[in-house]
C-alpha cells in the first residue's frame, strides 16, 4: 500500500510544476509587470523600474520562476501588493468564511440528495422516481445566476425572511446571513447529486449479493441499509471528497451577491487589481488541494480494489 501512496504523491509534483508554470506564463510572461496598477497615478518610468526592482520583476524569467518555486516550497508569498499584508494571513481569514458557507451547503446537499436518491431507487420506474428525477433535471436546467438574483429578490426583499446581504464575524451571528446563500447552493447542487447517487444505488441494487440477500429473506430495510448503502459508501465518500477543494475556494457568485468576504471574491479582486502574490498563492493552494483530493480518491480506490495498485 505505502509504495503506491508514495508513488501517487510523487506524481503530484510534476502536476504542481505544470500548474505553477502555467500560472507563471499567464501572469509574468503574457501579462507582464503589474507595476502600473500599483505605483500610483502619474508615476514615472523610473518609479516603475524601481517597483520592478523591488518586486523582482526585472529579473530574467528563469530567475523569477525559481523565486516563485521557493515561495511555493516555503508557502510564503510575501505581502499583497494591494493591501500590503501577508498573503497567508489574508487567505486564512478568507478560507474560514468560505468554508462556513460551503461546508453546511455540501453536507445538506449530500444528505438531501442521498435521501431523495434512496427514495427514487426504491420506486425505480414508478411515479415517485419519475417525479424526483424530473425535479432534479428541472433544478439543473436553470442558471445559478437566475437562482441567486431571483431568490435574493423574493426571499430577502419581497418576503423579508432572510438577510439581503452582509456578514458578521462572530460564529453564532454569521448564520443569519448565510442561510439564504446556503439554501441557494443546496437547491442548485441537489439535482446533480440526486441523479448521481440514484445511479449508484441502482447499480448496487442490481448486484448479486443484494439479490442473494433478498432471496435469503432479509428484510427490505436491512437490504437497503446494510447491503446497498454500505456498498455505495465509496462512491458517496469519493463524491464528497472531490468537493473538498471547492469548499475552500468558495463560491464566487454567492460571495459577491451576499457580501461574504471569502476566497472566491478575493481571487476575483486580486485578478482585477493585478495582485500577483495573492493570485499565485491562491492558485497554488487550490491546485494543491485539488491534487491531494484526487490522490486521496485514488488511494481510497486502491484500498478497496487492490488490482488498481498494479497498474
Amino acid at each position, binding site marked *: 500500500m505505502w509504495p503506491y501512496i508514495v508513488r501517487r504523491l510523487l506524481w503530484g509534483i*510534476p*502536476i*504542481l510544476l*505544470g*500548474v505553477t508554470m*502555467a*500560472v507563471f506564463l*499567464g*501572469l509574468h510572461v*503574457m*501579462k507582464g509587470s503589474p507595476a502600473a496598477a500599483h505605483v500610483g497615478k502619474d508615476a514615472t518610468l523610473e518609479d516603475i523600474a524601481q517597483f520592478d526592482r523591488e518586486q523582482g520583476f526585472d529579473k530574467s524569467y528563469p530567475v523569477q520562476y525559481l523565486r516563485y518555486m521557493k515561495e511555493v516550497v516555503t508557502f510564503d508569498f510575501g505581502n499583497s501588493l494591494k493591501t500590503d499584508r501577508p498573503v497567508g494571513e489574508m487567505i486564512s481569514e478568507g478560507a474560514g468564511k468560505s468554508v462556513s458557507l460551503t461546508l453546511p451547503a455540501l453536507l445538506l446537499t449530500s444528505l438531501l440528495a442521498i435521501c431523495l436518491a434512496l427514495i427514487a431507487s426504491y420506486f425505480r420506474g414508478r411515479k415517485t422516481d419519475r417525479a424526483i428525477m424530473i425535479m432534479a*433535471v*428541472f433544478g*439543473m*436546467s*436553470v*442558471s*445559478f*445566476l*437566475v437562482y441567486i*438574483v*431571483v431568490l435574493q*429578490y423574493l426571499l430577502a*426583499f419581497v418576503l423579508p425572511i432572510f438577510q439581503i446581504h452582509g456578514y458578521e464575524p462572530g460564529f453564532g451571528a454569521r448564520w443569519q446571513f448565510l442561510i439564504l446563500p446556503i439554501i441557494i447552493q443546496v437547491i442548485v447542487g441537489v439535482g446533480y447529486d440526486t441523479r448521481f447517487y440514484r445511479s449508484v444505488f441502482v447499480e448496487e441494487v442490481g448486484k448479486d449479493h443484494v439479490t442473494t440477500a433478498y432471496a435469503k429473506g432479509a428484510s427490505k430495510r436491512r437490504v437497503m441499509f446494510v447491503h446497498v448503502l454500505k456498498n455505495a459508501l465509496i462512491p458517496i465518500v469519493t463524491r464528497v471528497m472531490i468537493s473538498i477543494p471547492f469548499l475552500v*475556494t468558495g463560491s*464566487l*457568485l454567492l460571495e459577491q451577491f451576499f457580501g461574504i468576504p471569502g476566497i*472566491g471574491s478575493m*481571487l*476575483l479582486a486580486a*485578478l482585477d487589481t493585478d495582485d500577483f502574490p495573492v*493570485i499565485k498563492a*491562491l*492558485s497554488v493552494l*487550490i*491546485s494543491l488541494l*485539488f*491534487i491531494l483530493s*484526487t490522490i486521496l480518491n485514488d488511494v481510497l480506490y486502491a484500498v478497496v480494489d487492490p488490482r488498481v495498485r498494479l497498474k
Partner: protein
Amino acid sequence: MSPFWNSRPIRKLRRDKWALVCLSLIICYVLVAIAVKFGILGLAFEERVGEKYMQPSGESWLHWLGTDRQGRSIFARMLYSAKIAIGVGLVSALVGSTIGAILGAIAGYFGKRVDDFIVWLYSVVQSIPYLLLLIMLTYIAGKGIMGLYVAFIATSWVGPCRMVRGEVIKLREAEYIHSAKAMGYGDWRIIFRHIIPNTMHIVLVYFALLFVAAIKSEVIISFLGLGVQREPSWGIMIKQSQAELINGFYWQIGAATFAMFVLVLSFNIFADALQDALDPKSL
C-alpha cells in the same frame, strides 16, 4: 431500413418518446440558430422597436415579450441568443470531445511516456482554478466569442479524455485488437478504425454534457463581463435584468431563463436517454 436505423441504440432511442421530443426541440433551436446566423431571423436585436420597458403585446412579433431598457425587442434578442448558445455549445462540445477522444485513445493505446504526458496535461488543466484559467485565456484570445471558444475548448476536453483513456486501457487487451495487430495494421489505423469507434458511447454522452455545461457557463462568464460583446446572449440578458426585477419587470429574465431552460432540459433528458441507449452492458 439501413443498418444504422436498425442498430440497437437507435432502436432503443426511437422507442423513447421523451427523448424524441427533446431531440426535436434541440433541432428547433439549431434551426433558429442557423436562421439567425444567415440573417433570416432576429436581425432587429439592436434596433429600438418602441418605448423602453413595454409590456408584451401582439402588435408585431417583435413585441411578443415586450422591450428592454433601451426599447429593444426582447423576443428578437432571445432568438438571437440561440445563435450564441448553440455556437458556444457546439464548438465546445465538438472540439472538446474530439480532442478528448483522440488524446484519450492515444494515451490509452500507447501507454508509457505518451500516457504519462497526456495524464499530466489534463491533470494540470484540471488543477488550475477555473476562474484564473478563464481570465488568463482571455488575455490571450481577447474578450468576446473567441475568448469563450478558447476557454471552453481548453477545459472541455479533459472529461472525455479521462473516460476514453480508461476505456481504451481495457480495450487494448481485447481479442480483436490483438488480431488487428497480428494482421499487421498500423497503430494509427487501429486507433482510428477500431478503438475510437468503440468508445463512441462515451464520446456521444460527453458531447451532450459538454453542450449543456458550455451554455450554462456562458451565463457566468457574461456575468464577469468576459463573454460576447455587443451582441445579446442569454447570459447578458440575465445580467442586465437584475435591475428590472425590483421595478416589476420580469420579461427579460423570464425570456432568457425560459429559453435556456428548455434547451438545457432537453439536452439533459436526451443525454440520459442516450446514455441508456448506448451503454453496451444494457440490453
